[in-house]
């Protein structure tokens, strides 16, 4: 740092520069709010390609110019100093706090939150201004620590430089980020993608053919449903009982249920008694023995399916129901066909996106009402040209972090 720190350790009065910094930050926030007020909370529209890159280059040049040419001016030293950095961190934290409490969703335009865009905090003017100043301040301190280069400053450079790059490139690249929803039905092919943010239909440079959509589920469970309070009653053992032959579940004061027989794929026969069937049509049925208040009975229950009604059993004021197992995995077997003729077969699964032609394809969702009978797969196509820059920032932060950890441990040993 070019200014001598003169804060003592006794410091009952605020350190020099802190009051000015607080006023400065507050002014930026107020200015942002005023802009929102006069533009009826429309928020900031960051320029798209290539103006985002031009803006970024201009901003970096400005930081270097100011940092190197006017380094000895007290004002510039203050602009790149910790007191201002701290006030801006506090400002950022407080704005994030508002954004973390007020739901970030559309609200009536005349509501107070919408007028000042508190419901869209992270694309609002106050947030943008504070972030811009934050980057300026951080940038100056970086320039001073980097030039002249000293190895002792490496950890500082990695930490602060990584954060600068990740934040600046993440924000500048946000206008080029595309997240599109691509619905496809089994046995069909589509290149139509929906941009939900801008409500646009976009043609992808490739189409997706859905060969098969599959869902794996956890075992079905049965449970006691309380219709008056609309909730499931917990068993004595806190287990959600799995429907398997031999399982017994007890609900204190209500009764118990044991599974005598379990058919994972069955359909009701002519007399209503379920019979096991082959193929995908069958639904699970369980024959259960119910004991309640000294009475014993045997019944069939089922979670049902698209063509079969669910069966449940009344038990006093409650119902014994069979619940669908929760989805364990769902995946789409697809063929990707590019406009230039290139083909690729792939399996899309949650947490396993697939790259194709500069896009990343994700298994997003399916027709949840149809559950495991869904023939619709919802794929998300994402393009984010700035991602590598952001990741460089992330890895720099992690490297600086590792150094920091090592240094911290060493100092701790000495302490």
């Amino acid at each position, binding site marked *: 740092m070019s200014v001598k720190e003169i804060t003592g350790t006794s410091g009952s009065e605020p350190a020099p520069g802190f009051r000015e910094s607080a006023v400065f930050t507050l002014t930026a926030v107020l200015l942002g709010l005023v802009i929102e007020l006069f533009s009826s909370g429309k928020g900031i529209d960051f320029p798209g390609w290539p103006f985002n890159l031009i803006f970024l280059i201009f901003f970096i040049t400005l930081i270097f110019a100011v940092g190197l040419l006017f380094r000895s001016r007290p004002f510039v030293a203050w602009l790149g100093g910790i007191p201002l950095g701290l006030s801006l961190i506090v400002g950022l934290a407080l704005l994030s706090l508002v*954004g973390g409490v007020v739901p970030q969703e559309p609200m009536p335009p005349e509501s107070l939150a919408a007028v000042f865009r508190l419901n869209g905090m992270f694309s609002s003017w106050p947030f943008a201004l504070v972030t811009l100043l934050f980057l300026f301040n951080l940038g100056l301190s970086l320039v001073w620590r980097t030039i002249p280069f000293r190895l002792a400053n490496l950890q500082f450079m990695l930490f602060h430089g990584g954060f600068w790059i990740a934040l600046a490139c993440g924000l500048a690249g946000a206008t080029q980020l595309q997240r599109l929803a691509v619905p496809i039905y089994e046995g069909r092919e589509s290149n139509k993608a929906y941009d939900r943010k801008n409500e646009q239909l976009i043609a992808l440079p490739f189409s997706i053919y859905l060969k098969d959509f599959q869902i794996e589920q956890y075992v079905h469970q049965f449970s006691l449903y309380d219709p008056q309070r609309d909730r499931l009653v917990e068993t004595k053992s806190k287990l959600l009982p799995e429907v398997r032959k031999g399982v017994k579940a007890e609900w204190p004061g209500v009764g118990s249920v044991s599974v005598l027989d379990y058919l994972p794929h069955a359909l009701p026969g002519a007399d209503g008694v379920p019979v096991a069937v082959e193929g995908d049509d069958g639904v699970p049925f369980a024959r259960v023995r119910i004991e309640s208040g000294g009475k014993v009975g045997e019944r069939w229950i089922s979670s049902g399916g698209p063509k079969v009604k669910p069966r449940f059993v009344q038990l006093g004021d409650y119902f014994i129901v069979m619940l669908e197992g929760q989805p364990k995995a769902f995946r789409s077997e697809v063929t990707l066909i590019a406009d230039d003729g290139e083909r690729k077969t792939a399996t899309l699964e949650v947490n396993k996106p697939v790259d194709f032609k500069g896009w990343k394809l994700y298994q997003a969702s399916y027709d949840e009402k149809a559950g495991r009978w869904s023939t619709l797969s919802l794929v998300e196509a994402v393009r984010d040209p700035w991602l590598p820059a952001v990741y460089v920032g992330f890895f720099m932060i992690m490297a600086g972090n590792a150094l920091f950890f090592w240094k911290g441990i060493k100092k701790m040993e000495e302490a």
Partner: protein
Amino acid sequence: MTPVEFPSMALAAVACWSAGSALQIPARRSAIFNAFSWTLLISGTLLLVWFLASYWIALERPPLRTLGETRLWYATFIPVIGFIVEYRYKIRWLKYYCMGLSAVFLGINAMHPDVFQKALMPALQSVWFVPHVVVYLVAYALLAASAVSGLHNVMLNFRNRRSEKGESMSHYLALLGFVLLTFGLIFGALWAKEAWGHYWTWDPKETWAFISWLAYLGYLHLVARKTDPRKLQWYLGLAFFVLLVCWFGVNYLPSAQNSVHSYSG
């Protein structure tokens, strides 16, 4: 091992810690009592480790999905920090706070047992799941210890019995906590990219993680400014409340209704 066995298990752990703590008094003068006391203290923690391991096996998935499950880890980690601090720095009082905090979490879990639920939604089935959550939990445990120690130092200062060793301990706990918080945040971002298509969406949980990270970032820069360490003890004590909001307070905020992280409730 199922939640049914949990209350007796928790009670046994707390009993070990209480007996071990009581024996710390004669332990000051007798090596045998000292060995006996530490055997009990460590047994309490080993009981919890054993419960966690068998719970993991019974669930057939990492027990890191619900708040109750994370509290269990937390209750296991935090006394360990107290023990390590005593071993390294010969500061004896921190472990009592740690065991006390841990007992509170065990108590909450015993009163509000989780449903025993094997299912793990597809988004959570990832190599990132365990590192991301465990790094965060260790960070929270370290920062809780730094907060407790900060408030203890505040008390000492009121009584004019300032301990610089105590202050440097809360500093280093916070420093290590911050490092892990940073790793947790970035692991989370890298995972989110794989699971949800983008690394940062200002989801309420993410927003609060960012706020708590900023709170400790502010602390480190106040230290870099050579702020009076006695004032910073207050800061460390209070900063932990921000973390608590992030950890489970978020679920009660109006903004959390459409959070992708709400499964953690």
